[in-house]
């Protein structure tokens, strides 16, 4: 036993520390250095999931069902794994529209429905208040156990620890839960305190686990081996007592959904989220927390069962009684504080969440819609709002206490954990469906929630009342009016699973069925369609998207006055100034009272009084036009087209990137080509201007001075004629080359015997050689294959090659030899000279346009196009033209025409 003064003193000291942490958190927030803007704090605060029901109850469950307590923690693990898919979306929506509670969230999705908001609030209150009672009971009965005092439910109320605990928690919640009335300020101090409590309960539980396993017993092996040989305990080591496979699965699903739907989880995970990036670390950190707090559950349960004779001590209290019985009194105290922290964290957050819902979604809409209230209400409503919230906190906690006093040890209280889960899970179809399904309607959500809640009431809550003795057991055992098919725990004969699984199945069946069926009955209204697109597409759209659905007229002064009533004039001016600056406007008065501004005002207001009330209030001060479904659909169509485009763009952007690379490469190549073309044009220009210069200069000279002597005159005219010829040749060759290159050249192929052809060229081009007093020698075989080629073009090539050779051979001793030969690959012609030869590095260049090797006598007289044209011609026939030369030993220009040009025997006979 521990003395009550020690326990009360320690508990009080703990609460003072908690108060200090919360105060520090709020101070830091006020100073702009948020304590909770930290992924670790966020993940820890999520552990508000682990209540006294976990802290004490898990061990109790493990003592009867082995690992059967685990699915309750596996479900949330799975949800966190896909948190970016679900939680992230909830966080985004709530941030964008200043959602304050789960009731607000659901009502907002379905057109800010008042009916839905109050239904969700009522279900939450009915489902959760007993759960709060359970926390009070846990702390109170463990206190009684440690001090030997009577359990609270039977003593005088004013001596009841649970009552004082409820009152202390009410005070704490009021102080840290209702400090401000503006959703831009979260309850930072409260969240800091919750994270702190999560650490305390984890350390306390782990400490008990370690002591039980390693000090009281001799480690894991000792515990498990002892349990294995005990006939009572061996079954706990297998899944035999953990429930059926279906129950296990159902419990996983139930806990996964409850983790998202419990008001306290929504409050911490969504409303209090500072930065959505914190979800990332919580993805693994929170499951890790769950694993750690569960790893010693079974060892403690086994230890308790081994240590105490059966049925003497409630397994729920092993966490305390095991260290106490072994004399670890300090550890016992720590364990009690851990249990206290688990209970208080749950009660605080749940109360804040519920009081917000009661105030914003139940009381305010009622008040605001009453004409009498409007006349009677004070101008500044901030005080009233805070009063309602604080009142709600006290009422909820007292309701919890009252239920605890009334129910006592009744089944209805002890089993409330999962019953409570099953109640809030009724929100899942409307909430999750609303986030992903555009077609969901308000009527569908109302029908689903009503049906699911009804089934829950009938299959789970009423039977628990009956088992507590508050209702006759008859309807549970034999069905309403004795109709067996209506037995609440074996509805329509389905009774192979436990009561929770049974209730979960039927309530979800009714809920989802009604939700889907009624939603599909009629198309969504304009308001529903607008909100649906806002919620479903939150991850794709600017948060202000909702403003697009507003048409009407508003006055800024009206909006300011309205907001000032709920938020206080000073705060409103500050917020509106910030908004004005973000819109690039100096003064609030200069703002345009458009849809964006009205939407901004509405979200500001929603942060304080909930979206339903905010809608009512805004509608009362602005003139609105009701948008038809057609208009909404048009807006949505535009938006979805834009989205489709942007998605397409996104997909294409990758392809584009690749294409850009290709384009850049192609562009570089083109630029290179361009440069070459430019060079070509520039060269042509130069080659044309040069002869023109001479022609013009001499013509002008002759024109200026008619008295130039005859010899001079003749010489000048000779130059003019010569340059004119050069010009003509150049023009012809440029055109020729252009034609060949562009593929427009005419080719007149005939049967050509190269021996004939060379002999012919020798007579015409031979003159060029003889002009330089050089010798032209022909080396011809007796016969070569007749080829089908263009005779004139070949003459052009040969003339060019012989002409070039003639230009470079030395005068008097020059020899130009033309050699014809044939091989398997083709017919080859070599034109050899004994000129200076061509240096190695110039051998490639000479085939480029306008590149000429310097001849023996200074400036070459060619156009610089002969060789490029010749090469084009030979290549046209599939042959090759090349040069071999060693400087000092002349040059050999060779071309070879392939055998495939040969005229076949059959064609030979035919006329061409």
């Amino acid at each position, binding site marked *: 036993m521990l003395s009550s003064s020690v326990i009360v003193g320690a508990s009080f000291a703990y609460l003072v520390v908690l108060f200090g942490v919360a105060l520090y958190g709020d101070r830091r927030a006020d100073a702009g250095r948020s304590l909770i803007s930290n992924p670790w704090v966020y993940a820890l605060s999520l552990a508000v999931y682990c209540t006294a029901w976990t802290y004490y109850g898990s061990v109790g469950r493990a003592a009867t069902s082995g690992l059967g307590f685990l699915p309750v923690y596996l479900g949330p693990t799975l949800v966190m794994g896909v948190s970016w898919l679900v939680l992230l979306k909830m966080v985004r929506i709530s941030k964008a529209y200043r959602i304050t509670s789960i009731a607000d969230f659901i009502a907002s999705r379905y057109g800010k429905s008042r009916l839905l908001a109050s239904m969700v609030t009522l279900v939450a209150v009915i489902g959760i208040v007993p759960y709060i009672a359970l926390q009070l009971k846990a702390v109170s009965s463990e206190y009684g156990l440690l001090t030997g005092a009577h359990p609270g439910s039977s003593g005088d109320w004013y001596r009841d620890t649970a009552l004082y605990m409820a009152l202390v928690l009410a005070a704490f919640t009021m102080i840290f839960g209702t400090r401000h009335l503006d959703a831009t300020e979260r309850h930072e101090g409260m969240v800091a305190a919750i994270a702190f409590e999560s650490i305390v309960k984890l350390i306390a539980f782990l400490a008990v686990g370690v002591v039980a396993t390693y000090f009281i017993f001799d480690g894991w092996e000792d515990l498990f081996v002892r349990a294995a040989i005990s006939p009572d305990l061996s079954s706990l080591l297998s899944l035999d007592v953990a429930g059926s496979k279906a129950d296990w699965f159902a419990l996983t699903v139930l806990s996964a959904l409850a983790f998202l739907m419990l008001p306290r989880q929504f409050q911490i995970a969504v409303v209090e989220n500072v930065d959505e990036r914190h979800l990332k670390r919580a993805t693994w950190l929170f499951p890790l927390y769950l694993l750690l707090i569960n790893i010693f559950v079974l060892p403690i349960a086994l230890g308790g069962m081994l240590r105490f004779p059966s049925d003497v001590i409630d397994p729920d209290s092993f966490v305390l009684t095991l260290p106490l019985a072994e004399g670890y009194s300090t550890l016992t105290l720590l364990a009690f504080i851990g249990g206290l922290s688990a209970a208080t964290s749950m009660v605080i957050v749940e109360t804040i969440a519920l009081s917000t819902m009661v105030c914003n979604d139940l009381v305010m809409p009622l008040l605001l819609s009453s004409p009498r209230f409007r006349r009677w209400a004070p101008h500044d409503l901030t005080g009233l709002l805070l009063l309602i919230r604080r009142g709600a906190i006290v009422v909820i906690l007292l309701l919890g206490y009252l239920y605890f006093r009334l129910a006592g040890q009744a089944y209805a209280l002890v089993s409330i954990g999962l019953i409570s889960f099953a109640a809030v899970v009724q929100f899942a179809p409307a909430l999750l469906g609303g986030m992903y399904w555009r077609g969901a309607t308000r009527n569908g959500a109302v029908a689903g929630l009503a049906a699911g809640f009804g089934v829950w009431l009938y299959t789970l809550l009423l039977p628990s009342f009956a088992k507590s003795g508050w209702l006759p057991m008859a309807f549970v055992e034999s069905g309403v009016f004795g109709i067996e098919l209506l037995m609440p725990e074996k509805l329509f004969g389905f009774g192979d699973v436990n009561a929770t699984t049974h209730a979960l199945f039927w309530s979800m069946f009714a809920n989802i069925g009604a939700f889907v069926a009624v939603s599909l009955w009629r198309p969504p209204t304009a308001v529903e369609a607008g909100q649906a697109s806002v919620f479903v597409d939150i991850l794709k759209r600017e948060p202000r998207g909702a403003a697009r659905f507003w048409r009407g007229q508003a006055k800024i002064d009206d909006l300011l006055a309205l907001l000032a009533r709920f938020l206080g004039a000073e705060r409103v001016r500050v917020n509106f100034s910030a908004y004005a600056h973000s819109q690039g406007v100096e003064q609030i008065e200069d703002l345009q009272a458009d849809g964006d501004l009205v939407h901004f005002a509405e979200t500001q207001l929603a942060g304080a009084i909930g979206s339903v009330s905010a809608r009512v209030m805004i509608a009362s001060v602005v003139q609105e036009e009701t948008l038809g479904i057609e208009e909404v659909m048009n807006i949505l169509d535009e938006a979805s087209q834009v989205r489709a485009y942007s998605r397409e763009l996104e997909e294409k952007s990758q392809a584009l990137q690749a294409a850009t690379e290709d384009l850049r490469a192609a562009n570089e190549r083109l630029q290179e080509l361009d440069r070459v073309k430019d060079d070509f044009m*520039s060269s042509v*220009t130069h080659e044309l*201007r040069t*002869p023109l*210069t*001479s022609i*013009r200069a001499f013509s002008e*000279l002759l024109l200026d*001075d008619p008295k130039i002597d005859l010899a001079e005159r003749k010489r000048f005219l000779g130059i003019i004629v010569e340059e004119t010829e050069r010009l003509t040749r150049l023009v012809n060759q440029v055109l020729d080359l252009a034609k060949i290159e562009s593929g427009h050249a005419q080719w007149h192929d005939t049967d050509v015997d190269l021996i004939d052809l060379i002999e012919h060229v020798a007579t015409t081009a031979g003159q060029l050689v003889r002009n330089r007093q050089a010798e032209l020698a022909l080396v011809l075989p007796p016969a070569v294959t007749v080829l089908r080629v263009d005779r004139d073009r070949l003459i052009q090539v040969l003339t060019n090659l012989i002409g070039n050779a003639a230009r470079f051979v030395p005068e008097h001793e020059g020899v130009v030899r033309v050699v014809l030969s044939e091989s398997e690959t083709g017919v080859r012609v070599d034109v050899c000279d004994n000129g200076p030869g061509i240096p190695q590095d110039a051998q490639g260049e000479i085939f480029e346009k306008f590149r000429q090797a310097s001849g023996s006598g*200074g400036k070459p007289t060619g156009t610089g196009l002969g060789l490029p044209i010749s090469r084009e011609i030979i290549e046209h026939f599939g042959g090759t033209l090349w040069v071999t030369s060693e400087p000092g030993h002349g040059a050999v220009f060779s071309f070879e025409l392939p055998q495939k040009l040969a005229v076949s025997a059959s064609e030979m006979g035919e006329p061409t």
Partner: protein
Amino acid sequence: MTQSKKILIADDEPNIVISLEFLMKREGFDVSIAGDGEEAIAKIRSDSPDLVLLDVMMPKKSGFDVCQEVKGDPALSATRILMLTAKGRDTEMAKGLALGADAYMTKPFSTKELVDRVHELLGLNA
């Protein structure tokens, strides 16, 4: 004509050289000839002409190179340079003037204009 000025014609086109030579001699200048860039530099150094009619496209050393060398040498700073080119692009002209050429004419040129420019450059206009 007080004293005959010296002019160097640097071009690799024989026919153009003939016409320029005739033209300049007719104006009474003392004319020398260079067939490529290197020869032009050598003649500028040895003959120190008052004016060079300088072709851009020449073997061995382009007119630009010659121009740069002349203008970079303080000893030759008095030498006027009139560049002649058959490439009529603006960039060519800009390049020539940037390198310090005193004037720039494109081929084909008007003989009268050329003579006027030469007089102008030599400060012989009335």
